């Protein structure tokens, strides 16, 4: 069994599970849209105001949607014992982890990024700013997912970990949020978004290289309990 | 002396800051000392209990 074949099996397993719970797959998307909807309804439809805060709204909504989805990252596997099997399997745990997170991102986060331009237009964002928005989300959401998954795996052993997870993860999310929105805001006022993009890219690469190891360490600790 | 306390009009800000510093430092010394005594006491009880239990066995 080649590595690629087993990777393919793993990803298709994730997609199959998601497909069997289609109604749940819609949850992040619905949440994202609803949160974005709250702001024009709550603040009033003034186009200039909405245009000014649109990057923040979309980024915050995406961040919250990812936060909500973190609870599921390894939860079901932990509870039914699959996680122990994964630790004992032939495949290196890092690979399994990365595949799982890739599938999670594709299923839970990528649809949000596809929807973001639609919502951005509804909030009055111009096209080139939307482009920056998409790139910032593409760079930033992996960081959010990886860091969030690390903390979620650390709290796996705690039964009701929802609130604690959110509190632990928020200070780590804020820098990503700030850089993401400042990239979009820079384009909105006509300046270059290169600075924030470089930082986001650096954070993305940093989290991609380091968090899998942290997640594996956390999984092994949680499983050995 | 009263000029010293008055701090050029900023008495509230300056003295509250210094008072808070005192409180923080105080809590971080006294708190651990009290906890240490409690822990020693409960460890001592725990050991006595262990001895009693193993004597009965």
């Amino acid at each position, binding site marked *: 069994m080649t590595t690629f074949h087993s990777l393919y099996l793993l990803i298709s397993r994730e997609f199959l599970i998601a497909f069997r719970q289609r109604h749940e797959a819609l949850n992040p998307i619905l949440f994202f849209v609803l949160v974005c909807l709250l702001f024009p309804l709550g603040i009033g439809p003034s186009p200039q105001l909405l245009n000014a805060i649109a990057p923040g709204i979309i980024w915050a909504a995406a961040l919250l949607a990812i936060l909500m989805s973190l609870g599921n990252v390894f939860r079901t596997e932990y509870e039914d014992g699959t996680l122990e099997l994964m630790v004992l399997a032939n495949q290196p745990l890092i690979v399994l982890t990365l595949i799982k997170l890739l599938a999670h991102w594709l299923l839970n986060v990528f649809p949000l990024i596809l929807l973001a331009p639609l919502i951005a237009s509804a909030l009055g964002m111009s096209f080139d700013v939307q482009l920056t928005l998409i790139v910032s989300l593409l760079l930033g959401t992996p960081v959010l997912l990886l*860091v969030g998954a*690390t*903390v979620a795996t*650390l*709290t796996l*052993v*705690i039964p009701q*970990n929802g609130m*604690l997870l959110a*509190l*632990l993860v*928020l*200070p*780590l999310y*804020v*820098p990503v949020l700030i850089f993401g929105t400042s990239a979009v805001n820079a384009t909105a006022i006509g300046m270059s978004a290169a600075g924030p993009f470089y930082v986001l890219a650096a*954070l993305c690469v*940093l989290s991609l290289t380091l*968090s899998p190891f*942290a997640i594996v*360490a*956390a999984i092994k*600790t*949680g499983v050995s*309990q | 002396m009263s000029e*010293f306390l008055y*701090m*050029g*009009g*900023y008495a509230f*800000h*300056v003295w*509250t*800051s*210094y008072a*808070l*510093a005192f409180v*923080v*430092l105080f*809590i*971080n*010394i006294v708190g*651990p*000392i009290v*906890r*240490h005594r*409690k*822990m*020693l006491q*409960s*460890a*001592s009880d*725990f*050991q006595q209990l*262990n001895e009693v239990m193993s004597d009965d066995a």
Partner: protein
Amino acid sequence: MMKWIHTMASSAWFYRFSGKMIPWLMAIFTVLFVYGLYGGLVTAPADYQQGDAFRIIYIHVPAAWMSLFIYIVMAVYAFIALVWRIKLAEVLLISSAPIGAAFTFLALVTGSLWGKPMWGTWWSWDARLTSELLLLFLYWGVIGLYAAIEDKRTASRAVSILTLIGVVNIPIIHYSVEWWNTLHQGSSVTLTDKPSMPIEMLMPLLVMATAFKVFYAISLLLRTRSELVEREPNSKWLKQVIEENEHE
């Protein structure tokens, strides 16, 4: 060398060593603290623009320096605990967190008290204040996560990983005044350049900073001792200590 490290890492040795160190550290701290207070409140001349309100600096800046310093030290402990699995490093890590949180809190509140007369506002969402507030949440997160997990060794591993993830925030805080145009003042004291402050103003600041570091050592040793006792109630060294205490 390894034998020396392993001796130092043993709870028994650490307990006795810290017991002897604490009185000396208390004496050093008292001297430095009194000297710093006198220098800051009496000797230092009032600032040209800010008047006597600037004296808050002698609490605010050392507290802020400590909030960063302690987190970095915690990150070092976390690294040692994860790589070499030394239990004492785990205990030092979790004992440092409340002290760091206390200093961060002190820095934020004294900053608020200083900001009101100087900038006209108790709070602003500029980069340095916001990232310092995030640091407070990071400390609380470490304390909360450790408290939430029942098994202490698992809790320590989890907290070590969390600390290392959060260490990214430290450069952000430090360089925030350079990267963003902020309300907060830029650095007047650096390691390399000449300070932009006269020596009568600078000296109490450095003395207070050292005093706070000594204080951190005292509080850390005290807390570590209680945590060691709590973790190893049945150990031989503790039995000896309790017997010695009873003989006194």
